[in-house]
């Protein structure tokens, strides 16, 4: 399934349609989004290098990791970055996002380090992360430089939107992302989100903007978020559940889940048996409940229908409503209450019937429509 995500990003956008966009989100209980993000980057980039993808280049907008982190990552996957820097460019929003280093350099003896040659040939430092418009222009410029004009497309990876959201309001971040999606030279884009850093609305906005949502959840829920349960906590630090929702072009949603396992070398996906319960919420609510739950079914089976009890040796009783009038009036309700209680205990079903009022005619065998003159 992680496969199919990569395939969707690789295949890219159709002419005149929005580029596919992937949100990878997690929470502290299962903080593996970066691993998934890294996995997707390396998969996508190797297919770009092999020429199997629609896009011809990759722009990484790095906020939370240094450019060398990504270069090392690709190197570890056996990709020769030095020769492939025609295909990858990194917009470095990590090293000096607010221009502090720049300001300090101006005001006193502050010597910024010169980057390694490889990093400086692939990465460009961006210093004004508060300006989303400038960020947009820089991304597009960088991408166009990679693919050299024309109608050739490129992909964008953003780690993480959280940092963007700290520096700019949700609306301008959303504008940036949706402008990127609709740009006709962009093949696909994906970003990283730590959902618990923001209000619920923020992750809703980002999910709305994306065509694929991949979310990581802990495989063991901890009791009210506490870490008291050490075993589960230990378990969660290695494994998680990986849910993906594809918004397909034909209007369907494909839901899949897998288990992820974090290892020293990387991340592993193993498929999970499908959960049947997922779609239940989609079925519209019917006025009448047509299906019975297990408990309802048992209760129903326990109901002794009128007359059904007769014939097992007990005296035959037919309630005609009249006898109660003969009995003392205050005794009957007490007995009724007792009945209810004992029934709760023994678990057998019963139809409890109260007459609405004494005005009501007692039940009788008489045909109520007797006087009907047709």
């Amino acid at each position, binding site marked *: 399934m992680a496969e199919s995500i990569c395939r969707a990003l690789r295949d890219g956008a159709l002419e005149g349609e929005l580029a596919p966009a992937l949100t990878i989100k997690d929470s*502290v209980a299962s903080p593996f989004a970066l691993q998934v993000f890294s996995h997707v980057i390396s998969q996508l980039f190797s297919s770009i290098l092999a020429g199997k993808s629609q896009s011809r280049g990759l722009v990484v907008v790095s906020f939370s990791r240094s450019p060398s982190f990504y270069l090392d990552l690709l190197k570890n996957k056996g990709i020769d970055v030095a020769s492939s820097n025609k295909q990858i460019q990194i917009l470095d929003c990590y*090293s000096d996002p607010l221009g502090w280093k720049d*300001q*300090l350099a101006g*005001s006193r003896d502050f010597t910024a380090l010169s980057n390694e040659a490889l990093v400086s040939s692939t990465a460009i430092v961006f210093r004004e992360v508060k300006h989303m418009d400038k960020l947009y222009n820089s991304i597009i410029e960088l991408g166009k430089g990679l693919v050299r004009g024309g109608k050739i497309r490129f992909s964008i990876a953003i780690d993480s939107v959280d940092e963007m959201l700290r520096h700019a309001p949700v609306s301008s971040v959303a504008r940036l992302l949706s402008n990127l999606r609709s740009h006709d030279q962009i093949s696909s884009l994906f970003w990283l989100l730590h959902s618990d850093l923001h209000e619920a609305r923020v992750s809703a906005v980002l999910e709305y903007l994306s065509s694929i949502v991949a979310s990581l959840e802990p495989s063991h829920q901890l009791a009210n978020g506490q870490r008291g349960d050490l075993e589960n906590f230990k378990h969660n*630090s290695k494994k998680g559940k990986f849910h993906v929702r594809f918004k397909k072009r034909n209007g369907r949603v494909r839901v899949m889940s897998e288990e992820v396992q974090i290892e020293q070398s990387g991340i592993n996906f193993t498929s999970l048996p499908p959960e049947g319960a997922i779609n239940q919420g989609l079925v519209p609510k019917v006025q009448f409940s047509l299906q019975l739950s297990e408990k309802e079914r048992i209760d129903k089976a326990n109901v002794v229908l009128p007359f059904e009890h007769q014939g097992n040796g007990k005296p035959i009783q037919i309630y005609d409503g009249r006898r109660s009038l003969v009995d003392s009036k205050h005794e009957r309700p007490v007995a009724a209450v007792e009945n209810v209680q004992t029934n709760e205990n023994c678990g057998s079903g019963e139809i409890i019937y109260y007459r609405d009022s004494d005005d009501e005619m007692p039940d009788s065998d008489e045909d109520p429509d007797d006087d009907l003159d047709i």
Partner: protein
Amino acid sequence: MNQRSSNLLDEALGLDQVIEPWPLRGRVVAIEDQVETSGSFVLHHLLKCSLSPNSSNVTIFIAFSEPFSHYDRILRKLGCNLVSQRDNSRFFFFDMLKLQCPDGDEGITPEGGLIALYGKIHKTISALPEICWRNVSIIIDDLSLMEVAANGSSDYVLDFLHYCRTLTSEFDCSLITLNHEDIYSSEDRPTFFIQMEYLADILIKAEPLATGLATDVHGQLTVSNKGRNKVSNFHFKVKENVVECFYPGRSRG
């Protein structure tokens, strides 16, 4: 002997085998504690390890909570002389007890506040010989007071921490912070706190035991080492000259 008794903590942090090169280099370590159980002894322990004679580490200590004399006395009892280490340029102490950032956004200028502090740290590191860079630890005690110094602007503090983090990738040094978990536990969405947990490569939690404080067990530590994919949990007892760590029920009285 001392080495032996704190093995569990050192083991969890990867400090038990080699100390040179510094095993925490390039890492962010977050220590979290509570009113009942202070976690500052972990800071002292790390400070002691990094200044140990077998290593060539340099420590930059950013103190918001206590004056130099306090740490000096504690570390002396742990067998480490901060004054002489300071004279040897292995220990740099930044007294931030009186730091107060100017109010409002216009207060964020390179002349004052946290930007200047960052500049000072950067200058200190780059003035060191290049071979020392990867053995630098930056220790901040503690983040909640830094928030107060920044007039409650946690974004400003996060920006500062981001810049400190760039130092970990630029120079391969380590960043060690202390914060108080219970301050944030009543908040609905403690962004600052969670952000710090995301940043951390190693998370150390000091908590009281569920049964309360006792004289022979001062609390429990949970160390999650994301890099090595390992979680360890043990009890501890703080003494003047050492921290004793043991598995539950193994207290030596």
